[in-house]
């Protein structure tokens, strides 16, 4: 064959082949799936580790028990706080391919979807299932935007918990029940370090755990202070409450491990389990670490509320919602009803290590730790939504808070600069504070 002809034929084959491959791949990605026509429920979440996966599995089991003909497709995308999942979800939702429901933190984390009209209100689900009677007010407001419900909570983790090593604390003769203010707490730290040279009283981890800690300290300054803070009202660069909280944080840091910035939250908790320290402030997902280490509640370890927050419950809440334009709207609603139901919550939460968002849950199903926290949940005066865990303040605020507090904890920034940075951050993003919290 004429070589020129040959090259033209090869060229054409290359073009056709490339077009075929590209077209095929694009079709596979973009073609509407047939799932929409079948009886399917597709949910996205980031619960991939042992206990978490078992928990969502139990919740799905409850759903499948009620709707045996529906196929549940779980898309589990690992990465704590949805760090990997959220960008994927954002892309899917914007492309009009939203799953029937996806995990997110209640409160501000959902507001970007709400403001872009990507969520449907679910007032009917709340009314039909009488949820307002069994879910606390602050949790309700975390599920609302401008007065309408857009989410149902699946669990409650508590943020303001001090975990202590009971044996080490007894060895220095401190009764944990007396640690209700920071002075008593720091005295106990001093006692421990005095009796155990070379050890640090408090175990602390890297960036977000420090911001988590700051948030609890701020709540200990009073619920009105915390409320003002998450309502964006603390914009004075020399605010006395922020300044006092930073003073407490500075004292706190003098009792922590030096390598705090290189430990993950669970490595910090492990320091306490291994008797290297006596206190750790962390949300109650930490209970799982103690269980894995075969530590016994009230024998090896125990819990108190963060000093000054005894009448408060710090809320970290995961939720599901009904995205706009989903393929299976009816299944989406059914899923939300199961998530919010007593059976669903009591199947999910004992395995997850959290408590039910409902005040009528059956606490006998839970770990011994939950007897304490469950009783508090039913009796505390105040509840406050966490900022670090996505609920209490706009993302424009919470996304920077970790770095600001980390700078203070590592000594990169002094108290005055830190207080100013926190105040300016709120002032600069004041337009994003669209929710007015009422915590008292």
């Amino acid at each position, binding site marked *: 064959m004429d070589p020129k002809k040959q*090259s033209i034929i090869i060229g054409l084959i290359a073009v056709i082949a490339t077009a075929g491959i590209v077209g095929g791949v694009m079709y596979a990605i973009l073609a509407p799936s047939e799932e929409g026509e079948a009886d399917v429920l597709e949910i996205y979440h980031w619960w991939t580790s042992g206990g978490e996966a078992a928990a969502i599995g139990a919740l799905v089991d409850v759903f499948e028990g009620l709707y045996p003909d529906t196929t549940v497709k779980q898309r589990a995308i690992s990465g704590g706080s949805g760090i990997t999942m959220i960008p994927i979800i954002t892309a899917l939702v914007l492309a009009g391919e939203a799953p029937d429901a996806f995990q997110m933190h209640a409160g501000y984390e959902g507001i*970007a979807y709400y*403001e872009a009209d990507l969520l449907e209100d679910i007032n009917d689900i709340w009314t039909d299932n009488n949820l307002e009677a069994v879910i606390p007010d602050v949790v309700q407001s975390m599920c609302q935007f401008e007065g309408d419900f857009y989410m149902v909570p699946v669990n409650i983790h508590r943020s303001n918990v001090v975990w202590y090593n009971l044996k080490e604390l007894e060895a220095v003769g401190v009764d944990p029940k007396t640690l209700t203010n920071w002075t008593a707490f720091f005295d106990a730290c001093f006692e421990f370090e005095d009796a155990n040279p070379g050890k640090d009283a408090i175990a602390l981890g890297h960036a977000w755990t420090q911001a988590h800690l700051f948030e609890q300290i701020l709540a200990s300054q009073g619920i009105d202070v915390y409320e003002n803070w998450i309502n964006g009202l603390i914009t004075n660069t020399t605010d006395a409450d922020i300044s006092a909280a930073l003073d407490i944080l500075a004292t706190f840091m003098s009792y922590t491990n030096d390598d705090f*910035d290189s430990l993950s939250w669970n490595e910090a908790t492990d320091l306490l389990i291994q008797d290297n320290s006596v206190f750790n402030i962390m949300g109650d997902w930490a209970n799982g670490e103690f269980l894995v280490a075969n530590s016994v509640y009230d024998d090896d370890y125990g819990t108190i509320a963060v000093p000054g927050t005894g009448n408060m419950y710090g809320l970290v809440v995961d939720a599901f919602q009904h995205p706009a334009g989903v393929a299976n709207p009816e299944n989406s609603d059914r899923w939300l009803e199961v998530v919010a139901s007593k059976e669903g919550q009591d199947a999910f939460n004992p395995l997850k290590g959290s408590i039910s968002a409902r005040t009528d849950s059956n606490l006998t199903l839970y770990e011994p730790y939950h007897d304490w926290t469950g009783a508090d949940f039913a009796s505390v005066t105040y509840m406050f939504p966490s900022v670090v865990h996505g609920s209490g303040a706009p993302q424009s605020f919470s*996304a920077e808070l970790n*770095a600001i507090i*980390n700078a203070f904890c590592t000594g990169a920034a002094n108290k005055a600069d830190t207080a100013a940075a926190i105040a300016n951050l709120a002032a600069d993003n004041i337009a994003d504070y669209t929710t007015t919290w009422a915590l008292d």
Partner: protein
Amino acid sequence: MVSIKKIITRDKISTILFLIIPIVLVIIFIYICIIWNVVVSLSDWDGLRPSYDFKGFGQYQKLFTNEIFLTSLWNNIVLILIFVPGSLVMGLLLAILLDQKVRKENVFKLIYLLPFTLSFVVTGFLWRWMYNVRVGVLNTLLESIGLGFFRNDWIQNVDWAMFWVCVVLIWQYSGYMMLIFLAGIRSIPESQVMAAAVDGASGFQMYYRIIIPQLKAPIFTGFVLLLVFALKAFDLIFILTGGGPGYTTEILPLTMYKEVFRKKHFSYGSAIATILFLLIMIVVIPYLYKTYRREK
């Protein structure tokens, strides 16, 4: 018909056919995206719902009064000042060492180049573990060979964090630079080196006066490559330090990521991307200009 056939020969047709696909892809996924990014940075798109209403240069004004942006920009400059010369010097030293007619040269080449073949995510995790204060390789090693007093808090140290980040980048890039320089050294005619040797040039003089001056082209190429990388480094620092402690290792791409994907400030994030693009152009345009002029 005949004349057109003569102009557009069959060879040309097949060339055009082959080129059409890559050109279309490049236009769509690179040039249109760059233009689109600039458009977004001038729009009022803030939140998940795209909005392209023209808003002017407000985001750019905001950038240059924002402390976080200015800190990131400064950190980027510091990164360039340490990482670029560091990698060039290390690469040159390794190339000179390998040029000493060592045995098993290919084995050494492979060893030095290996870090560059690893993904930045992998090396980020690896070095985070190496630098770990309590159980990290570096501190454990120092302790075990009796140099415990050199124990360090590495990337946790507010004053030195950026330096230790640069060490990782230099470790990863110097093997690649070595290859570029080695090729440069090997392309210098043997006769020149011999002549210098006959004239009595010592080893040091040989490199300082004869070889290095002839490496201008590879040094320039390496300089541009490193500079562009230093401006857009993201993955390694995101994994290694996440920008911390505080903001000490936060560079522009990290700030951009946080603005767009966490805060959903699309137009503000796009403005940062545009600034990055302009900074990279400042480096690349003179390079391209010089390269094309040389070719002519």
